[in-house]
């Protein structure tokens, strides 16, 4: 495909995209944007739960002592254990993950 015809395809797609999206300008740092959820753990200077909790427990997940069983929503997700049948077009692909910041 020539670069000109590619440009036509891309320009057509961009035109369609611009029509479908209402681009609304928002005031930089508008106060209402600041109301909302905080994500992620916070650094603190408090102490934990005293002398009896996680810190002293000895968990060995490779031996026979691992006694925990997943008990969340994964119990109701019926997906094949090995991901069989979920390949794109049946082909192996290099997975790209966690791309660095642009």
């Amino acid at each position: 495909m020539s670069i000109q015809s590619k440009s036509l395809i891309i320009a057509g797609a961009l035109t369609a995209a611009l029509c479908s999206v209402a681009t609304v300008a928002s005031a930089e740092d508008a106060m209402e944007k600041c109301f909302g959820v905080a994500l992620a753990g916070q650094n603190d200077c408090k102490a934990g739960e005293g002398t009896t909790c996680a810190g002293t427990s000895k968990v060995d997940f490779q031996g026979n002592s691992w006694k925990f069983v997943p008990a969340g929503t994964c119990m109701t997700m019926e997906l094949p254990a090995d991901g069989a049948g979920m390949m794109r077009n049946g082909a192996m692909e290099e997975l790209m993950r966690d791309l660095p910041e642009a």
Partner: protein
Amino acid sequence: MFDYAQGLPAKPGVGYKPQHFQAILDNANPVGWLEIHAENYMGAGGRPLAQLRHLVERFPISVHGVGLSIGGEGPLDRDHLQRLRHLCDWLNPASFSEHLAWSTHDGAFLNDLLPVPYTMVTLARVADHIDEVQEALGRRMLLENPSTYIAFAETAMGEVDFLSEVARRTGCGLLLDVNNVYVSGTNQNYDPVGYLDAFPLHLVGEVHLGGHHEDSDDHGKRLLIDSHGAEVLGPVWELYARVIDRAGPLPTLIEWDNDVPDWPELAAEAARAARILEPVG
């Protein structure tokens, strides 16, 4: 040198929590200033920094570091010092404070304020580190007395003597955490009143008040945990009133980091501190 006693107002402040942003803007009374943990504002952008841009226009800010590891055996982290410098240059805070503690070793950050033995060796190391911090930031810092649970066989001097000597050598000020005095006094078998009477109150630029929980040690003895997860308890208020009576009004922070209450309950704690500050103010 900048006078930090004039930096923060001698009013109650609170540790800033993002869930209180709107309430604080609506009506912060009687809270007159806010403290942030430096490390929570070292991201590149987004809501945390946007909130802080609004708050710094309205309130004096105290930057309280929790990750510098001033008591660490290893050298201070230059990158972290630079990040602190960047934050302080942006906010021009009324106060910068850190802890007499260590938290990083061999590249692992342990996320706790760990104790140091009070010896001449530790004293020299801590003083060197504080010199480095004050030079890097271009400002005087306050050093906070810790809450501790264990003692060290090698400890050779009292905590008040240790802090006083660090301040004398470095010119730093002190942050007096009254709850920590009560917690450590109980845990280490000393009288908090005697500790406070010996404390160099003229060096104190800020006071901390917080809640603690009760547990017990290896021999069933009462052991207090500095949990910051409840209201300030009676004995701590009494010690605080004694400090203010002797020193006059001081900037006073309510620290509540765990099971954080709604704003009215936190503001009520600040109001209680304000009532102790006012009669002498």
